[in-house]
Each structure stands twice: as structure tokens, then as C-alpha cells.
């Protein structure tokens, strides 16, 4: 009886998986298989650098898997504003994984600053300047999904708090309550002396945004796998938010100390304003470092994990058995790295929130 149930379950899952694949496959063009078959014969040598950069970078489509040179990916909407032809809105499947031109647009394959971006060319082949590109890319979709997830999660938890008033937490609520309390008490209240409550919502938001996106980045398949917190644009926005909140809430003594740092010999301030210069640079360096730290840590983790995977293919190109042999080692290392990345996911979210809190605390500190 039990075996029957298990086989039924297995059958159901495989049917679901097949439906899923068919559904997604329908998005992509049917002809592509035949087209790619021609290219497949001249097999490119495996290039780990390109492979890794493609995986940690952004993309106009969400690649799911490749089967016999047949790419299955989720096409995403491309939204462009060209100064010459106005707004354009189409699905990225029109590019057929970057192989085809659509309208006047194509994805640049040349090495350089615009590699992988959409360019507009005239019929005579001259390239125009890059259009304003606000496409829903893989990272953008991942961002939106993660934000929806955060909203859903925390609003439902908030409802649980309303429902379970003055009672012990339950379920998701009890899972996340220690983290919420940790941020409130050990990050916000420990670092900010005055009006810490004002900053707690922001600190909670960035902590959970970074933490969950770090974790989603570790999931190798859709809807995870986007290297969102390892994207410099995302970390930049987070750092800018911290910078703006710091600057807006900074009190007089903070600004005064920038120009006239106390306890510093006068000749460091006059006639050459060395210390003020350093201090003023400091206010920009702080968020800049926040941006770089998160970006570098998460990207590095992905690069290392992908590097271990690349080893399999590098050795596999030399010899099939060497590839299988090294795969055991590679997978062991990748598992280790992934476990390490769990830790990094938490630590980086913690560090970002903690440093933001420290900057808020410094900006609102009373002068002694």
C-alpha cells in the first residue's frame, strides 16, 4: 500500500515537472533547436571565465536549463526608450537567446563595456548610443519577487502579531521573532543612542532584504539563482539609502566635527585642511565601502562555487573520466562553499545593518 502511494507520488511529481517544462518551453521559439543544431557541431571550448561571469551577471532572460543545445529559459519583458524611436516594449524571446536582431535592437556580444546589453543599430550598421534600458531583467524580476515575498511574509507575520496579541509567537512568527528582536536590541538600540526606534524599520527592512536575497541567490534553480545582492546597482541603492538617512538625520555636531574635528592638532586643519578633507571623504567612503563589501562578498562566493563546478567541465574536456572523477571533489567543495555561504548570507546582512546603525548613531550622537 505504502509503495503504491510512493509510486503514485513519484508519478505525480514527474507529470508536474513535465508540464512545467512544456509550459516554459512554449515561451521559447520552436525553431531554435534546428538552428542551434548547426552551431553545435563546431563545439566551442569551455571557457570558465565567460561561464562564471554569465552566471553572476544580469540577463534579459531567465535561463532554466539547456538540453542538447536547446535552451529553455523564461523570457522577460524588454522596456527601452530610444531617443530616436521612442518607447519599445517586447519580450526578450524575440532575441532568441541573443542570436537574432529584433527591430533595430540586438544584444551586444563584443567584449567591452556594453557586452550583454541591448544596442540600437541603423540599417547601415552604425551603432547609436545605448537606449535607456529599464527592462525587467533576471535581477529585476528576482528583485520584484523577493520584495513581494518580503511584503507577504512580514505582513502575514504582522497579522499574526495582531491575532496572537500578548501571546507566545507561533510558526513563522516565532522563527523570525529572534531576528527581529536581535536587530531591534543588539543592532539598533545598541548603536543608536537617541531615538533608535526611528531607524528600526529601515534596519529591519535592509537586513531581511539582504538576508533573504543572499539565501535566494544560493538556490541554483528558478526562482532563485539571481545574483541580486552581488549586483553593484542593488548594493549601491542600499548604500545610498543609508547615506541619505545618515545625512538627513545628522545633527549639528556631526557636521561641525567634519570641519573641526576635536582633539586634532591645529596644523592638520590650517592652513592645509587635511583632517576636514579626510573627514569629508569619509562620509562618502562609508557608504561606498558598504556597497563594495556586500557586492564583493556575495559575488566572490558565487564565483568560488561556480569555479568548483567549472573544474568538472575543464577536466571533462580533457578526459571524460577525469571529469567524473573531479566531480566528486568539486561537489564536496561546492557543498562546503554553500554551507559557508549560508553563514556569509547572514553575516553580510548583519554587517550591513550594523554598520548602517553605527553610522546613524554617529550622525545623531550628542557632542560631549
Amino acid at each position, binding site marked *: 500500500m505504502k509503495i503504491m502511494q510512493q509510486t503514485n507520488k513519484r508519478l505525480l511529481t514527474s507529470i508536474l515537472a513535465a508540464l512545467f517544462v512544456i509550459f516554459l518551453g512554449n515561451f521559447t521559439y520552436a525553431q531554435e533547436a534546428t538552428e542551434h543544431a548547426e552551431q553545435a557541431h563546431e563545439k566551442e571550448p569551455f571557457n570558465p571565465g565567460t561561464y562564471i561571469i554569465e552566471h553572476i551577471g544580469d540577463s534579459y532572460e531567465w535561463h532554466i536549463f539547456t538540453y542538447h543545445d536547446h535552451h529553455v529559459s523564461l523570457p522577460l519583458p524588454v522596456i527601452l526608450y530610444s531617443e530616436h524611436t521612442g518607447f519599445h516594449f517586447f519580450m526578450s524571446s524575440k532575441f532568441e537567446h541573443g542570436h537574432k536582431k529584433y527591430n533595430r535592437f540586438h544584444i551586444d556580444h563584443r567584449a567591452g563595456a556594453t557586452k550583454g546589453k541591448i544596442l540600437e543599430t541603423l540599417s547601415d550598421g552604425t551603432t547609436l548610443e545605448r537606449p535607456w*534600458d529599464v527592462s525587467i*531583467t533576471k535581477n529585476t524580476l528576482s*528583485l520584484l519577487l523577493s*520584495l513581494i515575498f*518580503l*511584503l507577504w511574509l*512580514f*505582513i502575514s507575520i504582522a497579522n499574526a502579531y495582531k491575532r496572537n496579541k500578548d501571546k507566545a509567537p507561533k510558526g513563522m512568527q516565532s522563527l523570525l521573532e529572534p531576528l527581529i528582536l536581535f536587530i531591534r536590541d543588539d543592532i539598533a538600540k545598541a548603536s543608536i543612542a537617541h531615538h533608535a526606534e526611528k531607524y528600526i524599520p529601515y534596519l529591519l527592512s535592509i537586513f531581511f532584504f539582504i538576508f533573504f536575497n543572499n539565501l535566494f541567490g544560493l538556490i541554483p534553480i528558478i526562482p532563485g539563482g539571481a545574483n541580486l545582492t552581488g549586483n553593484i546597482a542593488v548594493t549601491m541603492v542600499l548604500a545610498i539609502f543609508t547615506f541619505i538617512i545618515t545625512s538627513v538625520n545628522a545633527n549639528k555636531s556631526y557636521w561641525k566635527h567634519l570641519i573641526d574635528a576635536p582633539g586634532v592638532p591645529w596644523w592638520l586643519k590650517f592652513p592645509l585642511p587635511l583632517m576636514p578633507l579626510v573627514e569629508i571623504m569619509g562620509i562618502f567612503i562609508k557608504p561606498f565601502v558598504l556597497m563594495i563589501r556586500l557586492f564583493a562578498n556575495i559575488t566572490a562566493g558565487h564565483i568560488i562555487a561556480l569555479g568548483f563546478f567549472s573544474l568538472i567541465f575543464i577536466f571533462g574536456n580533457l578526459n571524460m573520466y577525469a571529469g567524473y572523477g573531479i566531480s566528486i571533489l568539486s561537489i564536496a567543495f561546492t557543498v562546503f562553499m554553500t554551507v559557508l555561504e549560508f553563514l556569509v548570507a547572514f553575516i553580510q546582512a548583519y554587517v550591513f545593518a550594523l554598520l548602517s546603525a553605527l553610522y546613524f548613531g554617529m550622525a545623531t550622537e550628542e557632542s560631549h
Partner: protein
Amino acid sequence: MGLVTPDFGLLFWMILSFSIVLFLLKKFAWKPILSALKEREDFIEQALQSAEKAKEEMSKLQASNEKIIKEARNERDRLLVEAREVKATIINDAKEQATVEGNKMIEAAKRAIENEKASALNEIKNSIANLSIEIAEKILKENLSSSVNQQKVMDTYLNEVKLN
């Protein structure tokens, strides 16, 4: 370089969506969560305090109970002692009174007996006098039948009168 150049599209979406989500989370998630946490903490704090207070009151109550019991015991002892004393005095009083009363009764009885005795004696005297008179009468009747005798008697009495 592509890796460290922020992409315009993602910057745009990130600023837009993250600002909206920050606002929504703050309004609909963090505010109720943080206030609920605070309320719960206050509630627990209060509950602990009131429990502590109740405990204190309990011990106070217990102490006062013990005191009351002790007092009651003392009171009882005192009452017992008092009762014993009262009993003794009552008995003594009763005894004294009984003695006095008894003495009085005995006195009265004695007096009554004296009176009775006196009256009885008087009566006996009277009856003896009457009897004597009757006897004398009878004797006289018999003796005075003769004139000689009459004379004699008369003399005797006359003599007696003279004596008196």
C-alpha cells in the same frame, strides 16, 4: 568592467520598488510588529510585577494570618485564665454567700425556734395555770363544803395577802 558598473535599469527598478516596499513594510509590517512586541513585553513585565506583588502580598497576608492566629491563641489562653479566675471567684462568692445565707437562715430558724419555744412555754404555763385553777376549783368545791374549812382557807389567803 560590466560587473562593477551599475546598470541603469536595475538602479531605476531598485530605487523605485525598494522605496515603495520600505514604505509599505514600515507601515503595514514593522509598525504593528514592533508595537505588538513592545506591548507584549510591557504585558509580560506587568504580569511579572503583579505576580511579584501578589507574592509579596501573599507572604504579608500569611504573616498577618500567623499574627492573627497567634493573637487568637493568646486571647484564648488569656480568656481561659480569666475564665478560671472568674470560676474561682464565682465559686468563692457563692460559697461565701451560701455561708452567709445559711447563717442567716440558721439565725432565723434559731429565732423562730426561740419564739416557738417561748410561746410554747407560755402556753404550757397558761394550761398549767388553768389546770391548777380547775384542780383548785374542784378541791375547793370539795373542801369548802364545810364552814370550818372555809374559814381556814379564808385565813390562809388573807395571810398570804398580808404577806404581799
